């Protein structure tokens, strides 16, 4: 079957039981999404499927044909980071970094549907992504800062056009 990941098509034989996370990590070697629990509890495996947040450990790869899948590797380029990635770096919204890809994907899903989330909305949207290092205060700050930066950039480009 054909899987479209980060705007690239992959032709792969996929067994019915294989999760999207396994296919991304072990077959496509996109190891940014992590296996933390395998039960949709920790959020370390979060990716976007059709622009919507998905726990890839609970998502069957076979069901993703025709969908646009975005992983952390496709969120921004190293020389053109996504505003969320910039904010996470600038505000130290990470410690060990293991949950960070999932946190960023969950935040990007939030900002896609809500460009100026309140503190409560950030907390609600991010509450499915555990961080054992306890980086939460800075994650909340970084998501809010990125939202502001994106609004500003959006406003600037709207004014230009």
């Amino acid at each position: 079957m054909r899987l479209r990941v980060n705007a690239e098509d992959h032709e792969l034989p996929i067994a019915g039981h294989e999760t999207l996370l396994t296919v991304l990590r072990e077959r496509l070697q996109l190891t940014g999404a992590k296996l933390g629990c395998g039960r949709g509890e920790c959020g370390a495996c979060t990716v976007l499927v059709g622009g919507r947040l998905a726990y890839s450990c609970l998502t069957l790869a076979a069901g993703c044909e025709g969908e646009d899948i975005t992983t952390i590797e496709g969120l921004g380029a190293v020389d053109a980071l996504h505003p969320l990635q910039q904010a996470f770096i600038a505000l130290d919204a990470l410690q060990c970094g293991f949950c960070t890809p999932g946190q960023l994907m969950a935040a990007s899903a939030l900002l896609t549907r809500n460009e100026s989330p309140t503190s409560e909305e950030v907390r609600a949207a991010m509450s499915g992504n555990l961080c054992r290092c306890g980086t939460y205060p800075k994650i909340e700050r970084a998501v809010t800062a990125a939202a502001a930066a994106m609004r500003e950039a959006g406003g600037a480009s709207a004014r230009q056009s």
Partner: protein
Amino acid sequence: MTEKRFVSTKVEVEGREEIKIVELPDLEPSPWDIDAKLAIVGQRVVRSDALEKVTGRARYTADVIRPAMLHAAFVRARVASGRVTRLDLTRALSLPGVRGALVAADVDGISHMGAPLFDTTIHWAGQPLAALCADTPELAREACTLVDIDVETLPHAVTLAASLGENAPLVRPGGNVPRRQPRIAQRGDVAAALASADFIITREYKTPCALHTPLEPHGSVAEWMGDDLTVWESTQGIFQVRSDIARAFTLPYNRVRVTKDYMGGGFGAKNYAAANTFTAVALARKLGRPVRCILDREGEQTDAGNRAASVQTVTLGALRDGTLIGIRADVKVAYGYSGWYASPAKIFHELYECANVNTSETFVYLNTGAMDSFRAPGHVEGAFALECAMDALARELGIDPLELRRRNYAQRDQEKKRPYSAKHLDKCYEEGAERFGWTHRRVGAAASRAHAGRLRRGVGMASQIWGAGGGPPAYATVRINPDGTVDVLTGAQDLGTGSRTIFAQIAAEALGARLADVRTVLGDTERLPYAGNSWGSITTASVGPAVRVAALNARSRVLEAAAELLGTDASTLDLRDSVVGIKGTERTMTLAQVGRELGDVMIMGQGSRGANPQDTAICAFAAQFAEVEVDVDTGRVRVLHITSAHDSGRIINPTLAESQLEGGIIQGLGYALFEERVLDTALGISMNPNTHDYKIPTIGDIPTIDAFFVESADVVANHTGARGIAEAPIIPTAPAIANAVADALGVDVTEIPLTPWRVLAALNGV
């Protein structure tokens, strides 16, 4: 007579003090004191590996993919005590894609968590009984379900009462209490002191079994190339794992390479090689292919260590003015199948001035997963009991809890009769109370209770002490490349603490290089000089001085080379921002120019950590303040605000240090409110070996947190002025929160986690 090159020095790790024979460094620079003019150390520079982490390029153990790699999974015991009478692998091995298995006979002499690996006697539920190896992780797990096992179940003891009761089943052949007796520590005469006290309080406190729950489970990848073994390990101690492997498989150290680049949390659980390590190594050798072995979440939550539960009976005796004159604690620790003496009692001897202290600790073996170090092991448990008892005493005496603590301020280490290298807990009390608004929040909380409404506010506080001096041995090399860039090489680990970043800051400062040109390389036993485990809050204070010395040695060498190039004497030269200049002139050369002229001449400096000061206690101190809101209808506790004031000497990077404080506080909040391994005592198995039912805090549980450091530089501790940070913040959180809940409810709170039913039980006096 030449001076001795090797000397004895004391090093405290996780509350245990060891004497080490260490080699003195060639250079022991004068300390960076509080007035030292530092340009890079102390700055809030960005974490050096942040880009790798936000782009998903940071490679963790499970991300290592080797050619022809196989995957291992464990068959685990489902009962707490028993005997395996039959273990038949036939069906499992016949599954296509399954390549092999490992049972006890394959790993003779290797132990895991205090028992032989794959022991046929079952000591705890979750104990590994065999491992299966297959082409994919899914196949390996499926193969595990096809192993036919017969088990004869035996009586188990999974609670203190069951293990200490009459006719208790023997958990260990030698008895259920190590050395069959409690561990006593005392000074003065407690009985006499308590007899003369104006006030005495006695309370029984209970703390839960808490699980580390790193988001990345334990894991290893092992690959043999001839006689050479490489292991990628999620670990806090690469050199420890190397020696564990070398001993287990009788290999020369120089044939075992252990590497760790990134790791997803340890918190004390990843200090040694374990079942995952030995299994990957043994299967890789047996099958001639690389093997990856990563624990699944259930394995992580049942067989990878824990903070032992405790029951602590505490008696405090005081004079009318609040002076503590007697402290007694009787402690029982629910060990699990094995563990070490992480002492809840220790803090009773340390935190307050008191001439008469007596503690008794009984460590009890149980048929549950083994205890292991967990961020300030012992101290977290002990601090909860001591600091809650202090508040109970304050209520009894009618003294402000903060004032009671100030009146019993310990001026020196009474246990070992020695001074502190530095102690600014008084400043923590003062600045913490000020920034928290201790006085007005207390008034506000009292006013909220006057309405006797459903939501009641309370405030509480607690303080802490924790050995944080670090010490030798630790080594570093600083290497200047021909283009003027700099490598800092040391075999330490960065667990997410920021050590990679701060070593670069220290090296850049000492060398006179631009920070952007300095890179730290960690985590490789084959290619880097020795540094110890990242535990016991020791890394900054242990490795930092070695990095500084290495940078200073590289500096003097590069200046000598530049002097030759410039036709002058090295003493006329200065080096700053990667530019060498002749003092008092405009003549300069960049490090890159020096490097270009020299070509591939290798300018290197070696550094090591010197001895600790003699007869000195080196500790981190903190005072923490909490405000909570309790719903008296539902019993739900919400923490609204935490202020945490810390004294850890010089702070190399305040941003990263504050991140660690927040992390410790949040783990402490989980311990106070949610976290608890729940056992089915009849079956002896865990009922919540996952991250849904074992509840760690989420972003929705987080209060506003103001965590900061009082300004200081500890010139006695070591020449960087820094002490440890990591464990201090978790120690006072649970008692500060519990004291705030007690304040809100007007009743004693003696058991954590403060789940709604425990809160309601406390409120109803049940």
